């Protein structure tokens, strides 16, 4: 049996770096966008002893003030099945006093601990000297000096795990900081106290509850007094083991004079955010073409070696088309997560939160909603999870609700395909390509939809009192390339295997639906065309036959069935099929179109564009994909909730189906309305 370990500490002090160092790539869950929102775990062994290590979200106190801090609270709860046997408490060497407040709470829980004092190099540069032996005696447990970035002290952390001890520090003295007769308060253990101030009175015994109720003090003030009491004692105790803290030059914040400048701060922010956006497309261009080419080669190869038959068709038109739809995304997703991770790791994201707080407040949000909104450009799933740093539940609900309206990377292939049909890639406007400008405006429309929705929600949702916006601003840091690489790797892997399963399954299902029909309707359709053929070329005949076969298939029947509802938006039944299949995930649209337009065998998007452009309405003979229809379809994909994963994560984060249901109805309604409007005006 592996020994259960947990790693705990304030935010932004290199916990995750240490975690990555200890576990390597043996991790179970990806952490999203730089911060550890969900705890993740990994395993390692020291001299034959196995440890299962959990990285907990950064917290200042064991008493939760936001949903991400609640993860810590629940993990350490008495009835928790994952309750750690040993805790590694990570402390920032430059800010020991405050960091030790958290440690002293762990000590009062009587859990064997090891202290890792991290970022020792930064502290030494500031002239701070820490006597680690003295500190170890003071705290009553092993103390290791580390620099997680360089790996210094890592072996010592590992070897000290066997020497972990319940710390001797005992600072919890409620009778000192609450004006109350001490005899009764002495009965209150720290765990009882934790449950009381952590708003879990049901976990208290009646005697303790009575004592605490009689105090007549709010849990907020009680907590504040506890922290202040710990702080003051620690400040006094630390005097003997630490020196050089008086000077404490304020390093790592120099860039703020520009980043938070009333004018240049905003200019810089705009520049950086646009730069991120531009980089995603510029950098992913080449790898995407490469993957496209490789996949086409692979399909050609299979085409050559496999015997004709149903198995070959399934493999090439179903499975390979599905796989292509998955891996083609990986470059964009990886780059996007990398850049967002870079903004967070460097500390710049906190500045963006401050700069935009004022604006966000106008729509019922705070600067903290910036992370979900920006991450939403990558993927709504981690973005919705990132709302856990928002402590106000009303604000958090609004943020969860509007995040899927931000144009995520899954919309990108849909956009790319459709824009390619709408605007020639040679059209340029100054330094910008016309295609890029159209794409940019689609993102803006999504953003506008999100803002408008938040504004409406803010006006109509019952208002609770606002929670104050308060935020720690971390010093700027050189990005930890290792951390970034780890998280990009984990997320890409999660995408390929989690989303990939769904996409692959749908591709195969779709291939079957498109290839088979009730009875022998497909054979009949083929015979009918062949009987009517007069002076058709072989090519023309083939196209007519495959189109008629598709129409007679199950997919065709389903598309035809919903066609009347789609007509106001200018969509035909083939688009209808794609809307149905891409309900699970938007990117399935492109794969569906490839299957429907029988370009799957070639597997290249250029071919698909040509075939889609050639498609004509059977009655009128007019092109299906006229500009009005393409624009209407683009608008549809901006607004519609075509993502089962988002619905699932909304359910998980809000704790009921009510909100995902509202999201689904609202976004689909919005998409129908806006697309109809666009098509009816432009047709």
């Amino acid at each position, binding site marked *: 049996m592996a020994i259960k370990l947990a790693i705990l500490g304030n935010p932004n002090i290199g916990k995750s770096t240490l975690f990555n160092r200890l576990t390597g790539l043996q991790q179970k869950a990806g952490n999203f966008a730089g911060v550890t929102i969900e705890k993740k775990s990994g395993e390692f062994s020291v001299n034959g002893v196995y440890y299962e290590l959990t990285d907990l979200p950064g917290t*200042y*106190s064991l*008493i939760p*003030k936001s949903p991400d801090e609640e993860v810590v609270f629940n993990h350490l709860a008495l009835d928790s099945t994952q309750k750690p046997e040993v805790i590694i408490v990570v402390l*920032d060497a*430059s*800010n020991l*006093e*405050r960091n030790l*407040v958290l440690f002293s709470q762990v000590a009062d829980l009587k859990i064997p601990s090891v202290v890792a004092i991290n970022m020792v190099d930064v502290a030494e540069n500031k002239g701070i000297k820490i006597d680690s032996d003295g500190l170890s005696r003071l705290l009553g447990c092993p103390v290791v000096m580390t620099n997680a970035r360089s790996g210094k002290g890592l072996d010592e952390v590992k070897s000290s795990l066997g020497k972990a001890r319940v710390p001797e520090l005992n600072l919890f003295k409620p009778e000192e900081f609450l004006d109350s007769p001490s005899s009764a308060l002495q009965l209150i253990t720290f765990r009882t106290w934790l449950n009381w*101030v952590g708003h879990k009175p049901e976990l208290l015994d009646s005697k303790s509850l009575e004592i605490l109720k009689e105090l007549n003090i*709010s*849990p*907020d*003030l009680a*907590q*504040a007094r506890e*922290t*202040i009491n710990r*702080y*003051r004692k620690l400040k006094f105790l630390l005097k003997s083991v630490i020196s050089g*803290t008086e000077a*404490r030059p*304020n390093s790592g*914040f120099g860039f*703020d004079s520009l980043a*938070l400048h*009333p004018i240049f701060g905003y200019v810089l922010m705009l520049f950086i955010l646009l730069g991120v956006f531009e980089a995603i497309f510029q950098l992913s261009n080449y790898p995407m073409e490469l993957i496209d080419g490789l996949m086409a080669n692979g399909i050609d190869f299979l085409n050559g070696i496999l015997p004709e038959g149903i198995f070959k068709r399934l493999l090439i038109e179903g499975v390979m088309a599905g796989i292509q739809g998955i891996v083609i995304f990986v470059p964009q997703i990886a780059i996007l997560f990398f850049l967002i991770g870079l903004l967070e790791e460097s500390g710049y994201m*906190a500045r963006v*939160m*401050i*700069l935009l*707080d*004022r604006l966000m*407040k106008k729509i019922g949000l705070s*600067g903290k909603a910036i992370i979900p909104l920006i991450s939403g450009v990558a993927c709504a799933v981690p973005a919705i999870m990132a709302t856990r740093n928002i402590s106000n539940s009303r604000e958090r609900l609004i943020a969860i609700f509007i995040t899927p309206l931000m144009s995520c990377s899954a919309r990108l292939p849909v956009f790319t395909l459709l824009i390619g049909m709408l605007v020639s890639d040679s059209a340029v406007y100054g330094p910008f390509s016309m295609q890029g400008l159209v794409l940019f405006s689609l993102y803006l429309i999504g953003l506008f939809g999100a803002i408008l929705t938040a504004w409406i929600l803010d006006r109509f949702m019952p208002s609770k009192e606002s*929670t*104050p*916006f*308060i*935020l*720690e*601003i*971390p*010093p700027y840091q050189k990005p930890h390339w290792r951390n970034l690489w780890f998280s990009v790797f984990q997320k890409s892997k999660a995408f390929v295997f989690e989303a990939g399963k769904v996409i692959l399954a749908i591709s195969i299902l779709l291939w079957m639906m498109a290839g088979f029909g009730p009875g022998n309707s497909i054979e009949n359709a083929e015979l009918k065309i062949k009987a009517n053929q007069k002076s058709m070329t072989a090519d023309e005949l083939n196209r007519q036959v495959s189109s008629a076969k598709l129409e007679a298939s199950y997919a065709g029947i389903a598309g035809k069935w919903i066609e009347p509802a789609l007509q106001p938006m200018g969509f035909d039944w083939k688009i209808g099929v794609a809307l149905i299949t891409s309900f699970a995930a938007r990117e399935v649209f492109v794969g569906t179109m490839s299957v429907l337009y029988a370009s799957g065998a070639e597997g290249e998007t250029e071919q698909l564009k040509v075939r889609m452009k050639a498609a004509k309405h059977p009655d009128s003979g007019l092109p299906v994909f006229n500009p009005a229809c393409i624009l209407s379809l683009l608008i549809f994909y901006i607004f519609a909730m075509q993502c089962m994963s988002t619905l699932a994560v909304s359910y998980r984060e809000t704790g009921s189906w009510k909100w995902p249901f509202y999201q689904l109805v609202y976004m689909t309604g919005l998409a129908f309305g806006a697309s109809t409007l666009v098509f009816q005006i432009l047709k």
Partner: protein
Amino acid sequence: MVSLSVLPANHQALFVSCQIPGLNAKLADLGMIPGTIWKIVNQIPFSGPLVLSNGPIRISVRKEDADFIFMEENSK
């Protein structure tokens, strides 16, 4: 005793108390302990958040919350 929101940039003052229910524990968590000296680093325009610093700690609070955070001007 003055309200934090009236202090000009680059001014230093001692934190005394906070009159916003629910904010006391969070301030203490971040190291805003009565008696600690804080410098007003920055004020985001259009009544945006204030940026305060104390040694290695830098935090940001909204101006309307700062109205109810009380400071003592540093006499030293």
